[in-house]
């Protein structure tokens, strides 16, 4: 039997390899066999009219052509091409040529000559353009052939004088894509025709057709993308194009100017009509700014976007973009921003209730007013006031990028960003809030600005409010009034939208820890303490009170004088909150309070260290004492697992790490336990019960390994290999258990074979990691591989059993960062006693709102599961648009789940939970393997080997009370 098996296995492997070789060798031979082409030829000859021929060609184009017969088909087509009088048929043939030369594996150099020849006698402009397109395809397929490219470029240059715009268009495109990029090549080829592609393309910047002008600029950009350094001389040409009549031209020209400004930022250009000179990047910046008030919104968007990436521009120019001189009746007026600032600095808070408060003051010299500023003046002022929200968003993004690189600019643009919080389109508001968050490290909010920012807290859109909370988390506030204002507004928000509770608490946590000194003077007021009288103890369950406490405790962390101001109940509340909301309340050093000081060890050091140390120590203990007696090992494992789990609960920073290792140890424990079973020593049939235990263990290990692989973000290949190894062991265990319990050998064949394949694929996947796995199960197994493949299943099982027992426990290295994917369903809360009533047979929409943390690619993996009481389960794939991304590593799922059921007599609860779908094909292991070696064979592998799909529940289920009523007749 084993011999048979071995033979089969061997045959399998060797065959695959051989076939591949055959494929390679036979390819050449089959090339000339014109099976398909013959049919086409017959068809084309049969065609009586051009319309017929066109029909045949259209049909032909729908079917794919094998690599071998491409050349034949091309020959037939070309033959027909020369005979054909009708331009439309020739056009189709030309396009087919292009399609065919795209065929993977086909090298089109053999048909290039013919294609070029066809160009010679062609009269129709459309066909010419199509042929050039075909040549472009051919050219791009032959990247390592400069001479071919040179030739094609020459052909294109020849046709540049064509009178049709289409042909010129294609020529320019071809030159752009294939033109020589390295200077050296160009020099060599100069003997044939001194061709400077840049000059040729540049000559067409003045073409009479706007489409050709656009194509010329695009070709230039293409050259740039391919690595050719554009000449600075183009700059002046491009500047002229900015005044073009056509928007595509202007749009492309803006891009070209941007490219040039990045290439030559420091070179000096003269200012026309004066003899001054400025840096090129400044000049370009001014020009692009000018385009922000272009007539076409496409150009405006383009210009606004590009402004953001011009960071080398000098600050003087940059700050002009926010400049707008106001006047009224020729007298200078101050902007609202300036007035607000002045009020603030004069210490007076917004009076602004008089008519003529904004009355213009000084006279302006009429000669000095420049109504159309050439250059950057007010570009962003215009962009942010634009009619189209696309332009406004682009402008906000650009502001963000520029402000990130320039703190002084960030300070200046603040007023404008704050203004954008009142935009009419929500997207723009959201974008500006996000922008503000990104630049918050550069800025400090003035009180009046803060006031405007906080006004948005009442927005009815949850996204806006949460974005704003995020923003407040990292905002610097300048005064204690500011903090007070923020707190008051946040509490107002809390009463209006109680669902924002968590987010507001978190916001206050950061607000407190960032501004301890500003919070300090507010403490008596906030806690409403009084020097002489005792005040009533506030309600501990009031979210608003908790919010205040969160602010204060976080401030107290770095302000040791603060606790002195607390009253007795505050300390009690502290201990309570420290326990119940440990992620919001930091450990405090409260002198003289025994209750508190015991919570934190007196010799305080940064607290991550000891726990992390503890984690590593406990792990080391496990790894070091693995040669203990079985009982000891088991106990040690059990204790360590318990410790780790508790550690994970206590230390949220280490939760991922601790859980991960605990799971791994759990797997190992299960494995050891399973192997300790007595059934191994006794004849199989007698111990059916125990092996149920063993097989359950195997199953659980499998599940756990999937969890380990897919639920944690930050898992590296070093861990993946260990996980896979563990899984392999589980599978071996499964095989052994089955072998023990089933009679007959037939089913075993399949299993053994599958197992061996898995070992093999393991070896292939992780070949680089194998040296690190000395003495492990797989290491030993691979040593025995030749023996395994030759032996019978029963022997295989025996070998497996022994290796499994003897193999050592692999050390699990810990990655730098490890986070467990978690999900928390915020809505539905599951507390409602009112059932959701709906007519049976119809659907009801259930709003689901959940936060996801550390989930990679949630759009693809997160599913919603609904479990009905009758055991029916429904899996819902949320739309990609339902996922928001409020911060790095965090996602938010806001979706609607449609429920429906037949009528019930009584309301009942359904369960809603989130699942993480995985597919081992997509596994991290396979994506890490370099593509060249593996991607092709991956497809060839049978799906059963790799494609295990499954789901892991990763949120607590929430119960929803529903009641489908029978439909009324």
């Amino acid at each position, binding site marked *: 039997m084993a011999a048979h098996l071995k033979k089969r296995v061997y045959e399998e492997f060797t065959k695959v390899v051989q076939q591949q070789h055959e494929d390679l060798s036979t390819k050449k031979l089959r090339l000339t066999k014109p099976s398909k082409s013959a049919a086409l030829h017959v068809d084309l000859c049969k065609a009586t009219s051009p319309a017929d021929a066109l029909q045949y060609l259209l049909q032909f184009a729908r079917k794919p052509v094998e690599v071998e017969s491409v050349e034949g088909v091309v020959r037939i087509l070309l033959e027909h091409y020369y005979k054909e009088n009708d331009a439309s048929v020739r056009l189709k043939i030309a396009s087919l040529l292009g399609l065919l030369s795209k065929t993977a594996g086909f090298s089109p150099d053999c048909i290039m000559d013919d294609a070029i020849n066809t160009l010679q006698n062609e009269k129709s402009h459309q066909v010419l353009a199509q042929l050039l397109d075909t040549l472009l395809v051919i050219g791009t397929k032959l990247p390592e052939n400069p001479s071919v490219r040179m030739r094609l470029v020459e052909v294109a240059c020849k046709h540049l*004088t064509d009178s049709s715009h289409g042909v010129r268009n294609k020529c320019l495109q071809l030159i752009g894509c294939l033109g020589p990029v390295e200077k050296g090549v160009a020099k060599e080829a100069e003997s044939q025709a001194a061709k400077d592609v840049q000059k040729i393309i540049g000559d067409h910047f*003045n*073409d*009479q057709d706007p489409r050709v002008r656009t194509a010329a600029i695009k070709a230039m950009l293409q050259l740039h993308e391919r690595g050719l350094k554009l000449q600075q001389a183009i700059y002046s040409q491009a500047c002229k194009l900015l005044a073009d*009549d056509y928007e595509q031209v202007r749009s492309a020209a803006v891009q070209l100017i941007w490219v040039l400004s990045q290439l030559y930022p420091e070179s000096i250009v003269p200012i026309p009509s004066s003899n001054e000179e400025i840096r090129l990047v400044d000049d370009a910046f001014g020009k692009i700014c000018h385009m922000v*008030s272009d*007539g076409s919104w496409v150009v405006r968007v383009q210009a606004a976007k590009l402004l953001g990436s011009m960071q080398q521009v000098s600050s003087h120019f940059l700050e002009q973009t926010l400049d*707008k*001189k*106001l*006047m*009224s*009746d*020729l007298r200078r*007026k101050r*902007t*609202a*921003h300036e007035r607000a600032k002045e009020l603030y600095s004069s210490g007076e808070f917004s009076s*602004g*209730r*008089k*008519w*003529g408060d904004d009355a213009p003051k000084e006279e302006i010299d*009429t000669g000095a*007013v420049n*109504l*159309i500023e050439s250059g950057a003046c007010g570009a962003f*002022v215009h962009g*942010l*006031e*634009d*009619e*189209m*929200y696309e332009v406004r968003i682009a402008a906000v993004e650009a502001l963000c990028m520029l402000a990130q690189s320039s703190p002084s600019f960030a300070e200046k643009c603040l007023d*404008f960003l704050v*203004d*954008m919080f*009142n*935009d*009419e*389109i929500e997207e723009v508001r959201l974008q500006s809030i996000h922008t503000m968050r990104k630049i918050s490290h550069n800025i400090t909010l003035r009180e009046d600005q803060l006031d*405007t920012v906080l*006004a948005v807290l*009442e*927005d*009815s*859109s949850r996204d806006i409010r949460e974005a704003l909370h995020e923003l407040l988390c990292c905002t610097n506030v300048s005064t204690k009034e500011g903090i007070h204002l923020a707190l008051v507004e946040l509490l107002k928000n809390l009463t*209006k939208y109680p669902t924002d509770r968590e987010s507001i608490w978190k916001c206050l946590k950061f607000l407190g820890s960032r501004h301890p000194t500003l919070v300090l003077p507010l403490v008596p007021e906030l806690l409403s303490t009084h020097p002489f009288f005792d005040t009533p103890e506030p309600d501990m369950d009031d979210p608003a009170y908790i919010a205040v406490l969160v602010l204060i405790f976080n401030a107290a962390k770095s302000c040791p004088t603060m606790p002195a101001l607390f009253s007795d109940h505050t300390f009690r509340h502290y201990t309570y909150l420290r326990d119940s909301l440990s992620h919001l309340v930091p450990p405090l050093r409260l002198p003289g309070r025994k209750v508190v000081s015991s919570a934190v060890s007196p010799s305080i050091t940064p607290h991550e260290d000891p726990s992390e140390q503890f984690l590593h120590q406990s792990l080391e203990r496990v790894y070091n004492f693995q040669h203990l007696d079985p009982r000891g090992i088991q106990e040690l494992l059990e204790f360590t697992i318990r410790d780790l789990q508790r550690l994970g609960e206590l230390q949220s920073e280490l939760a991922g790490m601790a859980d991960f290792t605990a799971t791994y140890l759990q797997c190992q424990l299960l494995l050891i336990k399973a192997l300790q079973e007595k059934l191994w020593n006794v004849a199989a049939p007698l111990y059916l019960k125990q092996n149920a235990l063993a097989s359950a263990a195997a199953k659980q290990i499998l599940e756990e390994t999937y969890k380990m692989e897919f639920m944690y973000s930050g898992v590296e290949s070093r861990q993946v290999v260990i996980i896979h190894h563990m899984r392999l062991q589980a599978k071996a265990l499964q095989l052994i258990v089955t072998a023990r319990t089933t009679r007959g050998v037939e089913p075993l064949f399949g299993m053994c074979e599958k197992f061996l394949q898995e070992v093999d694929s393991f070896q292939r996947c992780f070949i680089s990691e194998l040296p690190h796995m000395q003495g492990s199960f797989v290491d030993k197994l691979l040593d025995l591989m030749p023996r395994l493949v030759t032996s019978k299943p029963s022997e295989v099982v025996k070998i497996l059993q022994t290796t499994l027992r003897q193999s050592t426990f692999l050390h699990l290295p810990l990655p730098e960062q490890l986070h467990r994917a978690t999900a928390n369903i915020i809505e539905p809360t599951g507390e409602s006693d009112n059932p959701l009533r709906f007519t049976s047979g119809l659907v009801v929409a259930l709003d689901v709102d959940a936060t996801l943390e550390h989930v990679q690619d949630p759009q693809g993996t997160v599913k919603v599961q609904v479990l009905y009481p009758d055991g029916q389960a429904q899996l819902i794939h949320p739309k990609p648009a339902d996922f928001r991304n409020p911060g790095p590593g965090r996602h938010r799922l806001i979706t609607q789940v449609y429920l429906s059921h037949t009528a019930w007599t009584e309301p009942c609860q359904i369960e809603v939970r989130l699942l993480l779908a995985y597919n081992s094909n997509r596994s991290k292991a396979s994506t890490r393997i370099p593509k060249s070696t593996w991607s092709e064979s991956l497809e060839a592998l049978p799906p059963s080997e790799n494609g295990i799909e499954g789901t892991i529940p990763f949120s607590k289920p929430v119960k929803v009370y529903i009641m489908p009523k029978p439909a009324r007749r």
Partner: protein
Amino acid sequence: LGFFAVVCAGAGQDVGRSCILVSIAGKNVMLDCGMHMGYNDDRRFPDFSYITQNGRLTDFLDCVIISHFHLDHCGALPYFSEMVGYDGPIYMTHPTKAICPILLEDYRKITVDKKGETNFFTSQMIKDCMKKVVAVHLHQTVQVDEELEIKAYYAGHVLGAAMFQIKVGCESVVYTGDYNMTPDRHLGAAWIDKCRPDLLITESTYATTIRDSKRCRERDFLKKVHETVERGGKVLIPVFALGRAQELCILLETFWERMNLKAPIYFSTGLTEKANHYYKLFITWTNQKIRKTFVQRNMFEFKHIKAFDRAFADNPGPMVVFATPGMLHAGQSLQIFRKWAGNEKNMVIMPGYCVQGTVGHKILSGQRKLEMEGRQILEVKMQVEYMSFSAHADAKGIMQLIRQAEPRNVLLVHGEAKKMEFLKQKIEQEFHVSCFMPANGETTTIVTNPCIPVDISLGLLKRETAIGPVPDAKKPKLMHGTLLMKDNSFRLVSSEQALKELGLAEHQLRFTCRVHIQDPRKEHETVLRVYNHLKGILKDYSVQHLPDGSITVESILIQATAHSEDQGTKVLLVSWTYQDEELGSYLTSLLKKGLPQSTP
């Protein structure tokens, strides 16, 4: 050189009574037909007798264009068409056509019913007048007659406001009406393509103002309203029924929606309901946001804004009321104001300019005690706010529009002379175009450089472009052909075709010229020398030496004979046809220079 004339019958160096007459390439167009709010006598309407001393207006005017529904742009229309008498077409956009009669009727009511004037137009006249109106769409080119065409562009300002391009042949004028270059809550920004008109007639209300960003003003407004409402106060916003009122409604409506506010907002009824209805209909004329979201919800279907009833003014609790008229001089807004003025929690927001003498102006200038009718003294304790929401382009906006349109001349109307002066100077300085600012009745003549289109047959065009070097797109090119002027059209045809068409026989025109050359040699030797000489110089031409002793250069014949008197002088006879004039004269001048000294 062509030219056309512009006369301002109204709005020349003045705001109000917009009426501009343009005479372009023989066509007479009247732009806007407005009334002046400052006068109650004959001066309120433009002087139409100026247009024709005696004779029917219809014969003289080719069309009338109305830019938008404000009365200073369309108020005199029924008077003009029904009482003075005009039967030609009147063009306006669809929303203008819809809303204009409502306002005219309102205007009529106030003048006739309230002020008791007679000899004013009647409701029937308004209806008859509207029957003469042709509605146009944006960017639709309307052919008024065979030569005159007009085209509307979006102008912002109010619903349905448009700028018009008037074009005859290749001469064109753009009239902006009133426009706004910054978008607001319900309308977009004015836009025009690079149409390069000969003349741009633009309003210049805010010629000397550069405005602050709209957002600040909006935010202030909302903040003030919000604060008052939160305090439990009442807010009164006196508005005119159309235009700004809708913008403020949208602003408050969206704010209420966003902030989840519950306090009621009321809008005093009347005119507005009808008008709001039209705002709902003409969604395409509004801004991007309203256009994009109207499928889910039409922004003008207000959720929070309800019709006002007199009794509501006494209701307790916060509320916001929009009431007409805008300057607090009479009507509902004044009634409500009197009720609320005593409470310092309340607030009145004046969203626009107030004429002197009105209650609005008084309270804005800080007066706290007002004398009402019957010697009552009203103490104003409520807060008074001023908030400017104007929808005209500011100086920058005007410049921006000029930059977009690239006109060859600019003419300023609808503004004050002093302010225009400044803008004029700026326009001339920055764009280097001439700028005019005529007073009423002053004629401005604009000199244009009209282009005259000439048809050319494709065959001739191809033949001619094929000769010589590749044509450079932007350079003029010389062509040969015959210009035929027939039935008011110009055609360029080849000479053969021209002959055929005119039924003329072709005449050969030959020039002959004698050139004397001192050459003592024999004739055929001279010929040979000439031949060699020419061959050496004219490398690109075919130079042949014929057996009969003559030389041809292309089709030019050169023969040499000895001079009858002086054998040492040879006479070269050069003969060429008219077509070869260029080459022929070149040859003669070449030969006149003499032959080079023969090399031994």
